[in-house]
């Protein structure tokens, strides 16, 4: 389908994470036509691979279930997965957008019965667990995947595995001939909700991520703590698989740093406070968490949660940015070197596991967003430049937690509606 049916009354939402889904659903529930474009094979984005949210410690997939039910019941949202926006032209109320769709190699017949996965032997690193474990090359991204259809990884196309998958499918849902296709959409307004990426922790050389196995990032630790993660919810050390009861949380890993990310990523303080409760939940009184920080930015109502964690005897706070992480090469225990700036005490503290509260890098930086969407010095989309009809939403606009991202996405939906309503008024 070269040109999809979309008019200048259609709102395009780029990015199928919690912000993109919110913008799409809120607009659709106001009666607007929406096309939701997602580059991976499923909606849900980064929140689908979070185990719990701060401050309630509730489960992100619970919100995803509600949003998916809203999506299933709403015919005016069209979802295009494995799709990326490659070009945007035209102006406010009258855009032409080029979308490149990579082949899924599985058509609508798929009943998600899983037969193809059993037939295939090749495996790929599992992106939803940040590559900590592997996934069959014919896979359903995760249990809450939407659309609920399997995907064949391009790496096995043209190999015996692809043929095995095709043969195993009783509903000829596997179509090895699928090609990449490009389609053009006419849309009235665009909401850019491409979210964020964890900063590459290997660039923070003094912390030894990549050189020392027991130095991991907060998003990887989140997967370890998740019962459906690579370790079945056991918090363990990648080096020897032993349980990690003494965990260090290093704040501002990349953020607030002229050499890395100039901005403060806002969520890392609360993420670490939350994750100290994972260690507590796993090991009770035997747990030992230490948070190394510059300022604990548990802002406004999150202060309640910070106060609660401060009352937890298993959590210690050290006001110090860790200077260097070394490793005891025999036991592979990470050793944190630095100075506690409250009272100037030098420490070289040994931990089972170090979690870098990694900063947020906007994923807008890579994508070629249209010129009029101004990116600020940290690479986030600037607030809606007046006249522009391309609006940022969620973490593409600023380092935001989920609550603020969703609020921001709801606002972006209204801005998009304003554009398409005006276009409609102009024509009527």
């Amino acid at each position, binding site marked *: 389908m070269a040109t999809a049916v979309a008019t200048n009354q259609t709102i395009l939402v780029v990015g199928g994470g919690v912000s993109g889904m919110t913008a799409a659903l809120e607009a659709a529930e106001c009666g607007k036509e929406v096309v939701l474009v997602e580059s991976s094979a499923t909606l849900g984005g980064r929140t689908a691979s979070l185990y719990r949210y701060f401050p309630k410690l509730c489960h992100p997939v619970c919100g995803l279930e509600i949003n998916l039910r809203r999506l299933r019941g709403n015919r005016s949202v069209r979802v295009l997965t494995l799709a990326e926006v490659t070009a945007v032209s035209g102006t406010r109320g009258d855009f032409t957008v080029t979308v490149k769709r990579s082949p899924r190699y599985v058509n609508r017949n798929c009943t998600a019965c899983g037969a193809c996965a059993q037939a295939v032997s090749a495996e790929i690193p599992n992106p939803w667990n940040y590559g900590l474990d592997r996934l069959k090359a014919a896979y359903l991204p995760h249990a809450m995947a939407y659309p609920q259809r399997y995907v064949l990884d391009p790496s096995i196309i043209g190999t015996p595995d692809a043929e095995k998958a095709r043969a195993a499918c009783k509903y000829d849902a596997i179509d090895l001939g699928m090609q990449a296709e490009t389609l053009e959409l006419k849309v009235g307004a665009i909401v850019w909700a491409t979210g964020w990426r964890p900063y590459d922790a290997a660039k923070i*050389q*003094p912390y*030894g991520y990549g*050189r020392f196995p027991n130095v991991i990032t907060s998003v990887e630790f989140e997967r370890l703590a998740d019962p459906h993660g690579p370790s079945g919810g056991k918090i363990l050390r990648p080096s020897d698989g032993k349980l990690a009861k003494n965990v260090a949380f290093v704040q501002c890993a990349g953020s607030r740093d002229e050499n890395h990310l100039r901005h403060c990523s806002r969520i890392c303080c609360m993420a670490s406070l939350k994750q100290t409760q994972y260690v507590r939940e796993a090991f009770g009184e035997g747990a030992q968490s230490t948070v190394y920080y510059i300022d604990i930015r548990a802002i406004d109502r999150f202060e309640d949660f910070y106060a609660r964690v401060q009352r937890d005897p298993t959590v210690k706070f050290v006001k110090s940015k860790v200077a260097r992480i*070394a490793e005891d*090469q025999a036991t592979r225990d990470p050793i944190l070197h630095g100075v506690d700036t409250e009272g100037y005490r030098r420490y070289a503290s040994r931990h089972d596991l170090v979690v870098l509260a990694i900063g947020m890098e906007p994923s807008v930086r890579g994508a070629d967003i249209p010129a009029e969407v101004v990116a600020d010095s940290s690479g986030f989309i600037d607030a809606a430049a007046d006249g522009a009809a391309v609006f940022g939403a969620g973490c593409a606009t600023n380092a935001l937690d989920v609550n603020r991202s969703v609020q921001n996405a709801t606002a972006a939906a209204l801005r998009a509606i304003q554009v398409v309503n005006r276009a409609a008024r102009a024509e009527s």
Partner: protein
Amino acid sequence: MANKDYAFYPGCTSHYRGSASNYLVSVESMCRTLDVKLTQIPDWNCCGASVSYAGSGELARHVINARNFALAEQHLPGRDVVATCAACWLNARESKEQLDASAGLLADTNEALKEAGLRYQGIASVRHMVEVLIEDLGYEELGRHVVKPLEGVKFAGYVGCQTNRPFGIAGESFENPVYLDKLVETVGGQAVADYDQKVTCCGGALAVSEPEKSQAQIKDIVESAYDHGADMIVTPCPLCQANVEIYQADVNQRYGTKFNMPVTYYSQLMTVAYGGSAEEAALDGQIIRATRLEEIAATPGKR
């Protein structure tokens, strides 16, 4: 090949019978083989090193470095200034960056330089010898001249601090630079990859004024080399070479250790690998003799 002709800034210790004469001798032998032409900046002066700050404020220190640039621009126009010593390279480059960044500083500096009849125009740039080897020649070219690979000799690549920070070699990481290990492997030696004291400071000038504090660092540097089974330490900095070699005796006395680890220059390794004699590699300049290198230097060269 690009014109390998440089204005050479040897530094106060790299001269005949200076504490780094072995560095100078081996660098010159190495450059002869590599067809690199080093012409000393006429009448160059000391860069002030990193400890002389109490003598005067910032401006005087920038002026003494600007004098060398002025002399190079005047007598060796169009050639990059090349320094072998870490402190010379760092002070020269720091002054150059400050001068190029501030018109006020440039004006004050030239006002002072007028007293010596000189003017700094800001043309020449300053490079470390290692930068010349890696960027202008490249590992492949450096490997081509090897006739006697240093097989079986394990080197702990001790980069030290000032050749690595705050500027460092382009593309190299501050925590874990690998160019020295690559140079060792280029000449057939074996490098200790996970040598954890690679970039630790040896105490620098304070090895002289605060011996006890510096020797604690030097002990870690040498001990870790032994722990990783290294036969020798190789370094690009004359102060590191001197401190780590000379004070091993004091460290043994103070800590009861039995260190006797030779500390060599990359230029000595390359001179031996290129078939140079022990004298050309200034192996006779080692207080702790690098016997393994001397044996290789003594074996008849393979054509």
